[in-house]
């Protein structure tokens, strides 16, 4: 099955245009049967709630005003697009996602290259490297906020005092650098994830080809750009895709470190707040719909045009 066929819209019924339909159909259903439980489960659990969210997004529905519920057309969407808070949330989401994905990808690649070499204690270093990924996100966020960033007794300022003496600068990291504070903590948590995928990619390189290139006089840089990077392409795409999916939805760090203040409220936090604190169901739903459409459009573009993952599978 090539991408040419997948590029069209989904239409399960029209797929079988070939002869001997009834026989083939019976076989096709036998093949589909194992797929159905998962497919039905996912559709019921994701598409139905989302459809309901779309309906609610056209309603004026704030739980604090139970007598004032009804349809209002596009009001919520107009408010979503004109409200500065929402726009700030979109901007924060883009900044956070792009910078965290890129930074952890580049760092992850560099560290994977380091760990791909043999050295004393490589296994221990790999174990140390994956530890941040295994710390529960909310625990990691608490750790960064209270044990590291805290201006009075956090480790960062403590080390500054230790190195520079009693009159060392004691910046209030979170209020001075709100976005970078969140970015650093999330890059710390996600770099190991990127590193693991890329390390698996590096270790699946065909070494004999690289040896041959080396014998032909290729230097390390040439081997890296002409052989390693092309081989890693799928792994880079996969880690970008998975990382982006999870980092777009990052909630725990924003929730803990800044409580969404100082321009750090990303869309998940914004929707959470509109829904959970503001009880404005209509507006929260509209923001949710916009977020989903945005991510799906970007996701489809990335998957169908830029990424090679779907193109070569057959």
């Amino acid at each position, binding site marked *: 099955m090539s991408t040419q066929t997948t590029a069209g819209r989904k239409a399960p019924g029209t797929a079988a245009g070939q002869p001997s339909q009834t026989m083939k159909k019976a076989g096709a259903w036998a093949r589909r049967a194992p797929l159905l439980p998962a497919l039905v489960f996912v559709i019921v659990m994701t598409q139905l709630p989302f459809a309901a969210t779309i309906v609610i997004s056209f309603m004026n529905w704030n739980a604090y005003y139970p007598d004032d519920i009804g349809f209002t057309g596009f009001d919520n969407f107009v408010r979503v697009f004109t409200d500065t808070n929402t726009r700030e949330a979109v901007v924060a989401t883009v900044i956070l996602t792009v910078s965290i994905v890129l930074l952890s990808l580049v760092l992850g690649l560099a560290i994977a290259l380091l760990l791909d070499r043999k050295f004393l204690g490589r296994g221990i270093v790999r174990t140390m490297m994956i530890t941040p990924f295994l*710390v529960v996100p909310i625990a990691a966020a608490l750790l960064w906020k209270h044990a590291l960033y805290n201006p009075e007794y956090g480790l960062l300022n403590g080390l500054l005092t230790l190195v520079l003496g009693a009159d060392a600068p004691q910046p209030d990291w979170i209020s001075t650098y709100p976005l970078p504070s969140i970015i650093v903590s999330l890059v710390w948590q996600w770099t190991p994830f990127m590193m693991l995928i890329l390390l698996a990619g590096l270790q699946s390189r065909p070494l004999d080809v690289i040896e041959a290139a080396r014998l032909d006089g290729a230097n390390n840089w040439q081997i890296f750009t002409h052989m390693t990077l092309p081989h890693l392409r799928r792994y880079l795409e996969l880690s970008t895709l998975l990382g982006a999916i999870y980092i777009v939805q990052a909630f725990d760090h924003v929730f803990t470190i800044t409580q969404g203040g100082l321009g750090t409220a990303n869309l998940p936090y914004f929707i959470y707040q509109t829904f959970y604190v503001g009880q404005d169901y209509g507006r929260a739903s509209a923001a949710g719909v916009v977020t989903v459409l945005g991510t799906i459009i970007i996701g489809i573009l990335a998957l169908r045009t830029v990424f090679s993952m779907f193109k070569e599978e057959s």
Partner: protein
Amino acid sequence: MSTTNEDVGPTPPGERTEARAPRRRSETDRNRSRGRRSNAGLGVLAWAVGLLFVAPVLWMVLTSLHAETDAATNPPSFFAPLSLEGYRSFFGADPWPPLLNSLTASVVSTILVIVLALPAAYALSIRPVKRWTDVMFFFLSTKFLPLVAGLLPIYLFAVQVGLLDTVWLLILLYTTMNLPIAIWMLQSFLSEVPVEMLEAAQIDGAGLLRTLREVIAPVVMPGIAAAALICFIFSWNELLLARVLTGTVAGTAPVFLTSFVTSQGLFLAQVCAASFVVSLPVLAAGFAAQDKLVQGLSMGAVK
């Protein structure tokens, strides 16, 4: 191995040319691993980076083992006497119900995910259904759907049917959350089963069950372990859904962590002890199954 590295190490500028020297030609299989090209400098750098990344966690553990008065100091008191005060107050706050809720939700949803994902992945890899890439894409696209976007209807539905603040609701949602990724992982593992082996089994007259047991299971067992580990980690870690959809009864460990801080004020040793205990199951599982984790995460890209 390490001694040769260190021999080469002290002269980094010359190392590159040396690596291409004729000496290399006579090397055998064992040296196909890129060991010899490395040098001590890069090994030290790797250690430094590894230590830098693990340092916050070490600091968390060390702080958790200090008395409150020694935990929050500037400059940091690295060598203060150890104390279990933080752990005592954490366990004094009765963390068992939330820990048990987390365990139930994570384990049961992980089992459900595997039960649903395995047949689906089979249908998508071995003799795949038509338009299987479309189906795969559909599954993945549900991950683009931020959890919060479906949260309100789920909340309202849960209130209606009385599932609010129950572990069952979390189990259903965590299954939904992890199923697409598990299908992706298992699909890539299953598509590594050689078609020739399946055909051979068929010619030998092996039934579906025997084929599953003897041909497919050995290939896919590591994949199941990897997928299960990933699902367990993501379920155990989840905060947003649990925070909105549970209360006093079904609250999970991450929710407990958030309430812990606000209700007790800030006791750093206590917070660190709590964070460490809650992270411990994932840390243990992750360390024990590192290789599975690597295999699982590189799914799909591996051919």
